[in-house]
């Protein structure tokens, strides 16, 4: 028996790490990964709350998050590839023009 808040804190930390990664990383792919990290943190809190209140809905929601994450990954990575083809770089600081 451990307090729910531990799980929440863990998920919070993961989420913050994700945010931080988004802020300080310069490689698009890494930034993208930090987004996934945030999602994971959120998922954890979902499951934890589901466990506390005995509502399976929380777990179901995790599936939806995963599905969305998968879709996002597919499209996002495709975009990254396309960007890399035109820009020859993955550094977001270099990719600040909509049009070359």
């Amino acid at each position, binding site marked *: 028996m451990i307090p729910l808040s531990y799980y929440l804190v863990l998920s919070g930390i993961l989420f913050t*790490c994700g945010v931080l990664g988004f802020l*300080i990383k310069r490689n698009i792919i890494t930034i993208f*990964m930090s987004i996934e990290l945030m999602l994971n943190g959120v998922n954890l809190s979902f499951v934890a709350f589901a466990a506390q209140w005995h509502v399976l809905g929380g777990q179901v929601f995790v599936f939806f998050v995963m599905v969305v994450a998968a*879709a996002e990954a597919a499209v996002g990575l495709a975009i990254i590839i396309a960007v890399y083809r035109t820009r020859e770089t993955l550094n977001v600081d270099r990719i600040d023009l909509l049009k070359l």
Partner: protein
Amino acid sequence: MVHLILFSVFGLICIAGAVNLLVQSHPINSALSLIAVMASLAVEYMLLGAEFVAVIQVIIYAGAIMVLFVFVIMLLNAGQEERSKGSRVALLFGIPATVVGSAIGAWVLIEHSGTGNVAIGALPGPPNQIAELLFHDFLLPFEITSILILIAIMGAVVLAARPESVQHTKKEG
């Protein structure tokens, strides 16, 4: 007791992985540490009893999404990320802010999130019940997400497909 031990062990692995993701300058390392995070998260789910979610987490996140990431990293042969002027600022302001923010958040959570305790396997999420939810209560969202996936697939194909001209040059070259 066991619960606390397992929780803290894998929780620490999680945090370590997350931090590693930040400090590593090479995307592939970040990817691997993220995989570690996900795997240990799966264990945390197991602890909460959500075994199905845990396995799906491993299969989808670790087994599919991250494979995509690694694959792309390999494809683009992404190297070390180089410093640039913006980064210093982000480091200077971002890290303290987030640390403080998370600290406050943690404190608030611990102090004010009531006295909810969860035991090992608090809520077993057997697949059939989850299926029940997915295909009855959440049917519409389910279908919508399926359409979303379809669109995502097409979008990915369109985006990643090489432009015609490039292909021609390829053929000639």
